[in-house]
């Protein structure tokens, strides 16, 4: 899980959700890419975050794209975030004794625009949260940042600031996450995606900064 590095965080706001990730892809200490996508769309208003082993990130994002496209065509409707979460959970548990090394995060708005977020462990145990979820190599840092910065009923713009600060400062203290960030704010009308510039080297390499 720590070979490639990477982190994802999602938060609930007032009639909106946000999901954000870093952009680093490494091979242990060596950084290989500074633009590696970890968040993928499931539907217009639902996104899946996949931090962890990069090969599994790629394989699973393609697998879920396949399953969700089939669902859309067979059921002639968009898939709900809760259903995405259960589908991911079932897929992961099928590999209970040889798992995929990812710990997914799902964030989205239901048909009636109720916010939904959840996270899972690598074998599919779902954690339904009402406030925020974290995952990846900077997860411990993210827990600390979110616990102090998050408050309920943040408007989309405020939620953006909160989730950005939480992720940026958490990944700065993690050697394996960083090199920029991508933030998606999902509201009933639209999804706003922003790319953030961040410290190009972690704080751990300095003393007393």
């Amino acid at each position, binding site marked *: 899980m720590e070979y490639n590095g990477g982190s994802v965080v999602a938060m609930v706001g007032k009639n909106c959700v946000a999901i954000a990730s870093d952009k680093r892809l490494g091979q242990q200490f060596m950084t290989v890419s500074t633009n590696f996508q970890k968040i993928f769309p499931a539907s217009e208003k639902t996104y899946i975050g996949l931090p962890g082993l990069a090969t599994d990130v790629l394989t699973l994002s393609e697998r879920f794209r396949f399953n969700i496209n089939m669902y859309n065509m067979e059921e002639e*409707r968009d898939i709900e975030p*809760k259903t995405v979460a259960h589908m991911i959970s079932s897929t992961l548990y099928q590999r209970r004794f040889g798992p995929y090394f990812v710990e997914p995060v799902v964030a989205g708005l239901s048909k009636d625009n109720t916010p939904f977020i959840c996270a899972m462990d690598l074998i599919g145990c779902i954690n339904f949260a009402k406030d925020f979820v974290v995952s990846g190599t900077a997860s411990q840092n993210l827990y600390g940042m979110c616990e102090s910065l998050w408050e309920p009923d943040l408007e989309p713009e405020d939620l953006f600031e909160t989730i950005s600060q939480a992720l940026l400062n958490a990944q700065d203290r993690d050697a394996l996450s960083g090199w920029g960030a991508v933030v998606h704010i999902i509201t009933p009308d639209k999804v706003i995606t922003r790319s953030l510039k961040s410290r190009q080297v972690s704080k751990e390499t300095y003393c007393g900064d």
Partner: protein
Amino acid sequence: MSGDYSFSLTTFSPSGKLGQIEHALNAVNRGVTSIGIKATNGVVIATEKKSASTLIDDESTEKVAVICDSIGMVYSGMGPDFRLLVSRARKYAQQYKQLYMENPPTRILVEQIARVMQDYTHRGGVRPFGVSLLIVGYDDVNGPSLYQVDPSGSYWAWKASAIGKNMINAKTFLEKRYNDEIELEDAVHTAILTLKEGFEGQITETSLEIGIIGTSTIGVAGKDREEFPLFRKLSPSEVKDYLANIA
């Protein structure tokens, strides 16, 4: 009808028909009539529970079957074939539930059953199912819905339909009595009246099987204790009340 080509299921006749499927439809039309009616706030299915002898303990036979919380099914034709389709439908509904943690929308389950029935018209060494099915459900994608599936595997959505022995008369009766604003209570009443037209025995609360689903059958189900319409069969005393209103 198709003359010399009806011996093999997998051979088309020159006129483009599959003889075995035509014959399967005949088997269906020998079966006891079943009715389905869709209302604005629910759906009802009904059939006559006709036993070959008074000695049969007919409490053990079930013609109206529950497939999952929100879907039910009835048939006309061969009982054993129906039982197999019920167990396939139930298994599929549970597999869907295990994957997505919700009940399948009615149309999805209907398509799956229709696929099973079609499969048995496309292979060697098997025969088509000798049943037509009326499948009903209530989901929040399409609300109440009623589907008919035939031995060939074709399916249609209906507002009201009849299958089996008396289907032609029953459908004529339904065409006159059906309107788009009918509510579930009236639909049950109409279904019983339609069955009564061709009833072959004494119409009592134990010789009728009726299943309903709609806004009046909302119940709590599932581990999350969600509320949604559940499919259920009417108890004999409920049927008796409806019959009292007719007599």
